[in-house]
């Protein structure tokens, strides 16, 4: 009974929900309106996904709350500041509105600048990687180097304007080896995704259930 409720029913929900959307797309049965039901469930999915947006904040409160309560040396003041920032954003955003001028100010002065800078800071490490790691040690790395070199040159607008032959060279590299290899990867990944989806529907993949008890594993 316990395994039925805790494992089998969630897997059955996955199966039936996925089947609903597959039927809506592929099958037409007179008298059965898959579309309306699928539309309702689809919109429920949006709201449920919205509920999951709070997980990050909850996890951070648990993790950094431990640092604060234990007064972890060199860490707890930062943990306290982190939680204050979460609360500040939440209070301002929920009370004044997610697109209010006050929240926009808060976003632009902190999150936007930080996000843009964190993303871009990897460029420094790439520069170091270009110098230290991009070596023609064998055929494969040599190929990566040569293609990378040509495309780096093409991506510099002045080099492309000053040395026009590089444009069709880079276009060929893009259209032939890159697209074909990516297509091969895509087809393989699509087969994998289909297999994973079917396995999840029939209960062979239970990763989404989280930790399983011994009884649930056996089932």
């Amino acid at each position, binding site marked *: 009974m316990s395994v039925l409720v805790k494992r089998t029913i969630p897997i059955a929900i996955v199966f039936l929900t996925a089947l609903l959307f597959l039927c809506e797309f592929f099958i037409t049965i007179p008298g059965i309106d898959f579309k309306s039901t699928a539309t309702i469930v689809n*919109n429920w999915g949006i709201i449920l996904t919205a509920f999951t947006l709070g997980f990050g904040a909850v996890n951070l409160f648990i993790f950094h709350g431990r640092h604060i309560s234990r007064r972890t040396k060199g860490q707890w003041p930062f943990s306290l500041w982190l939680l204050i920032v979460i609360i500040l954003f939440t209070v301002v955003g929920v009370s004044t509105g997610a697109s209010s001028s006050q929240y926009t100010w808060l976003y632009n002065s902190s999150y936007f600048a930080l996000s843009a800078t964190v993303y871009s800071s990897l460029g420094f490490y790439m520069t170091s990687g270009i*110098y230290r790691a*991009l070596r023609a040690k064998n055929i494969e790395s040599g190929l990566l180097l040569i293609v990378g070199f040509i495309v780096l040159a093409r991506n510099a*607008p002045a*080099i492309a304007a000053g040395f026009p032959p590089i444009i069709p060279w880079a276009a060929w590299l893009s259209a032939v080896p890159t697209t074909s290899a990516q297509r091969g990867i895509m087809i393989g990944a699509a087969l994998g995704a289909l297999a994973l989806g079917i396995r999840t529907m029939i209960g062979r993949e239970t990763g989404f259930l989280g930790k399983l008890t011994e009884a649930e594993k056996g089932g």
Partner: protein
Amino acid sequence: MGKESKTIWDRLEDIPREVLYGILIITFIMPMLFPIGFPVPISPEVQRWYNFIDNLPAGSAIMIDFGYSGGGEPELGPMAVAVYHHIFRKGGLKAITMSTSIEGTLLWDKAMAEINPAQYGRQYGVDYIHIGYITGTETAMAAVGKSIRATTTTDYHGASLDSFPIMNGIDNAGDFSLLICYTTGGDQSEGWVRQWYTTYQTPYLCAVLAMMVPTMLPYQKAGQIVSLVSGAQAGQMELLVGKPARGIKSADVITMTHILCLVLVVVGNIAYFGKKFSGGKK
């Protein structure tokens, strides 16, 4: 006996990262202080994008997904702004925007402030609108494709969609002539192929980060995307639209920094092979 002295190859291989970063920073700053004005050739995919929008008949509705995050704004923001300039200048088009990115609505506000639609006589709710951020990525795309009003009845400020003339007769994917997506996420760029192009055959223009272009190329080759561009090509779009801005400003810097990269690749390999052929290990 004592430690071996470093050869020239060892020294070349072990340049401290601080020196490399310092050179990189200088290479960034110099062209910004002293612009050179390098030419920027227009690539075929940017021209194809421009032509597609230019050939849209009056009254066409465009669904635009502002799906990029703050991290991608320096690259995709200028492209989005340039394309909006084109849409507003052309006139007669309805630009309905949504966001599959959690920062999308705020970044859209930023873009609109930069564009100033009023200069073209364009009004919110008549020529353009934002229906808000919708969670769920493909779930949101599928929901909006089926029915916008079944998903949301308001714009991103909370005003009723029916109070805006632009939304008259617009409710599902079949009412749109074009889909445009600006995104930093593969889930979004590929999700629109699955949820709109495959289901409704809506023509699709896709702008992604340059690093994402290779993974999207198979879709373009198969005809599922009309034109795939990277945000790095924003300068070219600005030239076509006649509104040079942040995108074209980066051309000099990108040229100089890429020349630096090419030099680093050459020097690094000279150091490697020099050490290898002079009898050094590794």
